[in-house]
Structure formats: C-alpha cells, structure tokens
C-alpha cells in the first residue's frame, strides 16, 4: 500500500514515522517547503543566531532513507480522488492508496490596503524566514518594523527583531496583550515585560493602511487612530488559516479547513487530514474546531498512523495543554483558564504573583465544587503529567494548592514558590468576575 502525505511538518512527519513503526507500507512525504523536516517553532532561533538551520532538523538526513520514508520536493496542485492521484505543479502525477493532508496554514491577510507590498510579510514558513533575512538583515536596512497582531507569532517576531536591535512597534487590537486568551492579570504582566524589552506596544490599535514609498516598498503604516508610523518592515501576525486552496473542486468537504470526523477521515474514503489544516466537524467539548498548535498536530499524526495501519483509532486528546515563551517569560498552560470576558458564572480564579519578578500563577476552578479547570503559569514551569492527572480527576482547588510542590518543574535551587502560593491562598475568596 502506498501512503502519500502532503506536508512534512510535525503532523505529516509524525504520521509517517508511526506508520513506519507499525507497517511496511510505502510512504511518500511531499513538501513544497523544504527537503527535510525542520522544527517550525525553531525558525526564530535561526534569525536570532541561536541555532543554524541544520540544528533545527530533529532527525539527521540519513534517517529518512534508513526508515524507508521517501521524500518528494514538489507542490501538489490538485487532488483527484476519483483516480487516487495527485497532480503536481510540474505536471507529474502520483498515484496513492491512502492520502494524508497535512499542509498546515499560512498567515492571515485581511485585505489591508498595501498588504502585498514589498517589505510586508508574515512568519510561518522557511521561505518567510528567508524573506525576513532580506527585509530585515540589520538595523541599518530596517530601522523600524511594525508588527500587526498580538498573538504568539507576533511576540516571537518582535523578539527576533529586537535581537538585532531593530526598533519595533507592536500593534495589538485588544485592550491588553493576548487578553482574548489570558485573564487580565496574566496579560498585564506581559504588557509590562514587553515594554521592558523596549518594544513600542500599542494596545487597542488597528492597522488601517500600509503606504508604499517611491521604490514600491513599504514606507509607513497608518493606524486607526490616524497616526502614520514610518517603517521598513511590516510583520503580519494576525493569526493563520489552513492551506486548503489546492483542494477546491476535489470533492473533499472544506470549510475553514478540511472537514474531518473523530477518526480524522474526510468525507472521501482513504483520505485523511491532520494538523493545522484539519477542522473537526463536531468540535470536542471545550475545544476549537481548528487547533493550529504543534502538540495537536503531533497527536493527530500519531492517531492517524494507527488508522492507516488497520487499527481505526479516534483522535482523543487529553486535557488541553500548551506552552510558549514571551521574550524571557515562559508560559505553561493545562486545562482551560478563561479570560474575564468568557468566564462563566461557575468559574473563579486564584491568582498568585511574585513580589518583584515576572512570575505568576492563575488557577481556574468551579465555584460549585472547587474542581480544577485549568492553570496558567508565567515564568514558572509546571509538570504536564501531574496537572493532566489533577484535571482528569477534577481535584479540588484546595488540594491543588496544597500539593503545588509536586507540580513545580523549575530547575533545582529555584525559589520554591509552593509555600507562598499556599499561604496567599488562605485569604483567597472565590468570586466570579
């Protein structure tokens, strides 16, 4: 059996690896982006000079031949399910028995005037990184950059540019950084931290227009407050959307992404979709239909491999988890901590903040029975497996606080905050916001 996988990101590669572990099927991994799998989340470190491109490759170049995973550098133009073939942009076609779509996503553009000018770009692919290297090699060529969109990629792009001493103005639609996801106090800590890094953070500010200069390159942006900010680079980081353009007319059901059921199957037999580009027909409780996150991509890859090897397996992720790093502040989250605007009547938060360092913890729990709903930790590392267990068990908040020392994962000799967290909890009054 020949399994074709479109996309060699974490989802597609994980699927390929696990199919190989469990079978002798022929596997072809198709990518238009790169010859070898690299860690997308590490692209920023190449620009910052922490890593070379080679170091972002999780497997050595011989790995693929040793494991009989064929690599094909090509762009798929169309899928022909009626004949089980893929049409490539160079005119070739490829026959498959099973198809896995793992094409990821690309940066959103919302129809801003000037969004296709030179010097305007997103940050998702290897090609985007190469473009950034041309657009912003140093602070002389790129004196100021404007970043549009206050999410995880936006803050990473800001950190990258600051590492080369480039001035950064950061336009954020929300009233506080990432407060569509984080409660206010977590978000406020980050506002301060971002400004401490000499990033010009503009809250509640939207992009209206990007202005070209005489050479056709970007020269300035205009914000909705009417201000014109001169710049040499505009980073568009207002979210991403699934790469599914090439599937139009193929007969595969599409919405924002490729529609799949719990088995990650599309409407057509033998065709699956995983990772950023997959959209659950019926989202799981409390979760989004499209989750463009490294970890979910990897789990879907593991799951689909079982189905491909004759063992139909549902995609059943455990409690939500994610991580990020905001400049110097690490972020761990398990379960769900709602921001104030989305907080239900039964959800309360216990918030602890370090006296002077950018460290804080927010525990969300049900007021009715005290059961743990989720945790956000900034500047503090928490154990995945401990919180996974506590969340599955719905451990009462009092117990969670009492056992905090079991969950701390900071390096040895770091401050043990569990006592402070416990002590402050004694005066905590549950109240919904």
């Amino acid at each position: 059996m020949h399994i074709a996988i479109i996309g060699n990101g974490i989802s597609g590669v994980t699927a390929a690896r696990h199919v190989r572990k469990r079978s002798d099927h022929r596997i072809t991994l198709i990518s238009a982006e790169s010859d070898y799998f690299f860690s997308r989340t590490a692209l920023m470190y190449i620009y910052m000079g922490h890593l070379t491109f080679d170091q972002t490759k999780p497997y050595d170049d011989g790995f693929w031949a040793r494991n009989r995973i064929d690599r094909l550098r090509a762009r798929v133009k169309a899928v022909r399910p009626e004949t089980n073939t893929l049409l490539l942009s160079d005119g070739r076609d490829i026959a498959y028995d099973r198809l896995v779509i793992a094409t990821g996503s690309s940066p959103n553009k919302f129809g801003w005037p000037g969004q296709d000018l030179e010097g305007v770009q997103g940050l998702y692919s290897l090609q985007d990184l190469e473009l950034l290297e041309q657009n912003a090699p140093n602070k002389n060529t790129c004196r100021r950059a404007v970043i549009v969109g206050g999410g995880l990629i936006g803050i990473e792009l800001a950190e990258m540019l600051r590492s080369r001493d480039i001035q950064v103005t950061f336009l954020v639609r929300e009233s506080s950084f990432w407060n569509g996801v984080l409660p206010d106090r977590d978000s406020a800590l980050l506002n301060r931290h971002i400004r401490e890094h000499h990033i010009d953070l503009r809250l509640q500010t939207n992009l209206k227009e990007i202005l070209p200069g005489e050479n056709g390159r970007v020269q300035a942006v205009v914000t909705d407050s009417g201000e014109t900010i001169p710049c040499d680079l505009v980073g568009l980081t207002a979210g991403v959307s699934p790469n599914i353009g090439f599937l139009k007319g193929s007969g595969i059901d599409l919405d924002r992404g490729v529609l799949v059921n719990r088995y990650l199957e599309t409407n057509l037999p033998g065709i699956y979709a995983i990772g950023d580009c997959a959209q659950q027909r019926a989202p799981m409780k409390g979760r989004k239909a499209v989750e463009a996150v490294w970890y979910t991509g990897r789990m879907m890859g593991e799951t689909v491999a079982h189905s491909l090897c004759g063992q139909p397996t549902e995609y059943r992720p455990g409690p939500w988890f994610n991580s990020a790093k905001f400049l110097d502040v690490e972020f761990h989250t398990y379960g769900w901590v709602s921001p104030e605007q989305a907080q239900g009547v039964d959800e309360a938060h216990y918030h602890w903040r370090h006296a002077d360092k950018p460290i804080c913890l927010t525990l969300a729990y049900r007021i009715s029975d005290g059961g743990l709903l989720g945790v956000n930790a900034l500047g503090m590392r928490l154990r995945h497996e401990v919180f996974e267990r506590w969340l599955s068990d719905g451990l009462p908040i009092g117990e969670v606080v009492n056992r905090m020392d079991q969950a701390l994962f900071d390096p040895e000799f770091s401050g043990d905050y569990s006592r402070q967290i416990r002590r402050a909890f004694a005066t905590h009054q549950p109240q919904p916001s």
Partner: protein
Amino acid sequence: MNAARTMSLAGGPPQALNTAQRFAVFAGFSGLFVLLLAALGISFPNRAAWLAGSLTLMLAGVVGYSWASYASHPPGIRNDGLWFRPVSARGLWAWGLGILLTGFYIVLYFYPQYLGQVPDGPNRGLVAFFDPLSRALSGNPASQWFVYGTLYTLAILAFGVKFIWKYRHNRYEVLRTLSVMFFQLAFAFIIPEVMARLNGDLPYYDLKNIWPLNYYNFEGYRIKGFLGAGNLGLALLLFGIGSVLVISPLLTYFYGKRWYCSWVCGCGGLAETAGDPFRQLSDKRLFAWKVERWVIYSVLVFVVLMTTAVVYSYLGPDTRRYWLSRPQFLLGVAGLLTALFAWVMLFRRKELQKDAQYGAWAYFVVVLALIGFHYLSDSQHVFLFKSETLRKSYSFLIGSIFSGVIGTGFYPIFGSRVWCRFGCPMAAILGLQQRLFSRFRITTNGGQCISCGNCSSYCEMGIDVRAYAQRGENIVRASCVGCGICSAVCPRGVLRLENGPLTGRINSRELVPGHEVDLLQQVQKQA
C-alpha cells in the same frame, strides 16, 4: 532552502562594541600585553606590582565586558548572534585563538624553557615574572606549572563571573559556577601551595583531583612522599584511595556524575566558564557518539593497566617495604574488577546498552590482562612493555596531548568538553555508574517538547537531548555532566535535572503524553 546560506554578511546583530565594552577590551588586552612583554624577556622594575596590575587588568577586562554585555538586558537566555560571530562560529577568531592556545600548550608541556623555566637556577621571562606570587604562597620560586595554574584559576574566576552574569536568572547555574570557582581557587590553587609551605615533604596534591584523572597519584615517588610525610601524608594517601572507592561512588549514586564534572572538577570548571561560548560546537552526530564510547573506554582500560603496572613495579615481592605484596595487589585489583563485572552482568543486564557493555567488557579485558601480568612480568616489565614506558606514553598521549593540547587548545573548534567527553577516564567511570546505578536523570516534561533543538545544540557533551525529549523520554546518558544548560535554554520548560528513585528512571514510550489516558493504555496494549 537552506536558511543558513541566505544569511548575508550584512545580517546578524549589531557587531559594534559599546563604549563600556571598548574600555573592558582595552583593560583586558593591556594586562595580556604586559604578560607578553614579560614572556619576551623584558624585566619589569617592580615585578610584584606589575604582575598584580597585569592580572587585575585581565580580570577587570573580562568582568567589565560581561557587565557591559549583560547588565543592561533583563535576565534571560542571551545567545543572540552566537552563530554570526567569528569567535563562536568557527570563524577567523576561532581558528586564531585555537592555534594560539594549542601553541601555548605545546610550549608549556614540551618546551617550558621558552617560558623562562630554568631547572637549576633563577627563572627568566614569564616564569620569573610570577616568582613574587609563588614565593608569597609557597615560599618557592615559580615554575611553568605555577604560571599555568595561576592563569587557569584566573580564567575560571573571570569567565565564571561572566557566566554567572549571563545566567543570573538560573540559581542552579549560579551555584554550580560559584562551586567550581571555589574549588579551583581553594583546592587546586591555594591549598596545595600552602601545604607545600607547611610540609615540604608532601607531594603537590590537588585534593579534588581524583584518580584516574589524577593518573599519577599512586606512582612510586608520590607514595614515598605521602608515607614519608607523617600522619598527614598517610591521611592524604588514604583520602586518595577513599575518594576513588567510596566517596565518588556514593556521591555519584545520589547526584549523578555532575557532583564532580560540573561542580568540582577543574577541567570541567574551565570548560563551563571560559569554554561556555564554544559549547554549541560539540559534534552531535551518531558517529561522534560511537567514537566517544570507543575512545573513552579505551583510555580507561589504558589507565587502569598503566596504574596497575606502575604500582606492581615498585611493590616488592614481599611485604617488608609496603604492607602489600605483588600477588596480593594483583589479586585485589582482579577481585574488585571481577566483582564489578559480575554485578553489572547479573543485575544490570536490562539497562545494559552499548555504553555499559563496552565498559563491562573493558573491565573484563583488564582482569585478563592482570592475570597475564603475573605470569609474563618481571620487576621491570609488564607483558613486553616496561612499566616505565607505559607510564610515559600515558602521560604523553593522554595527560599532555589529549587533555591539554587537544582538550583545551581546540575549544574554539571542537567545543569545550572534548577531553571530558572523549578522553577523561574519571568521567568514564562516573559515567558508567551514572548510567547503571544513580538516582540522577534529566526528566522530560510530558508532551511539551517542540523539537526546536536548543537543548541538543547547547549540549557541550554532544548528547542529542532532543532525540529523547521529543519522544517524552527521560535522558539517562553516561556522558551527561549535568551542567543544566539544556534545561536553561529550553524555551518550553521541558527539561529538569533531578535525583529520584531508580525505578522508572529510564522510560520508553509508544506515544508521547497528551492523549486521553484510556487511549494511551489501549494503544500501549496493542503495540
């Protein structure tokens, strides 16, 4: 497609130094220049003052540069532009520095007369320049080793401050660095000199330098020295034996080999401080790992054989001079090694991966060789070799060329832990124990790894940390010195150095954590 290729020369972070950095460079290089003048034979009027000035300027230069580089940034990982700078990315400065360091080691080991070392008479040049400090400490004139020891200690102190500044947000790193700075200054530098002043019969003894790193510790002249220096000498000898057989296994059981390699050891101390800008250069390929295992365990076999032969050769046939006779000694060593080999084979078969297999077989080869000794040897020869030849070749090949010339001279090319990884027999012993019988491991935090590669890149020992982390597995490797940098540079809080129970320390997984628990179990069963 290869992003590294598109990195133009114009790219990278600002290369220009700020004003404070320029002052620091001026101070540091002025101090170095004074040393150079002294080495060229220029005699300074007030040597003590000039020496103090030179050393202070170098210290101030490094400390000032660190302050100018890190103090203005909030605490956090600052490896910006590391791969763009010639000195840390095998560019012009790296090669230049590598050649200078290598040259210095060659002169130091083989042509000390060029440094001004005069065996029977007053020193000249650089060695003479250090006389005032040596006289102040031990009462004796300096030697090339005193010069080297002073500069070595200065490097650990100065770059230790730099390291602490760089990682000031991480207390593990701060404490560990203070520890190596203390052990270098007190144990390696001051205490032996002072001991020499108090008791001239005592052999020079850096107490933290444990056999087999200190391969000469049980040689005849030292044993004579120890035994001839009264109770203190005997105590030191017993300490030397005890540190090999009792202290080090015990500490390694509780804390892993890091208690020594990155908290105490001087070689490790230099690698962690002065060598820090080069840690990312270590070779991560599987091939390098293979070479590592062959070379390091060969060195271990070599040093065990050599030491046994040397001790054997000065022990008499009877017990009149020493309380141990030759056959007793050989039987003792063979018995110890056989017991170790049997224990490993009986109780650690499961964990017995290649590392341990090589080690165990190495022990076995040594045991066989020991039996051979007895039948094929006379007082001068062990096998066909003279024990003196064996000792001299070890001292030349391993003690000088490997640990000094290659180990340190090549920092800017091969990374900072070449000696520790490929050559150090002490690290080999501690490593075997760490793999087989220690509470130490690096825990991987569930499914949080994003495979970015920072951990692997910044591992000075060339361990592909990511290969374990991205599978959700703990890292239990013989070579890990527990420097903690993988955990520090991890942007997702995935790694933690820990001591814990032996069960579950080495874990393998079918799926990375993150799935529903039932699903995990179901898949685990089917696998």
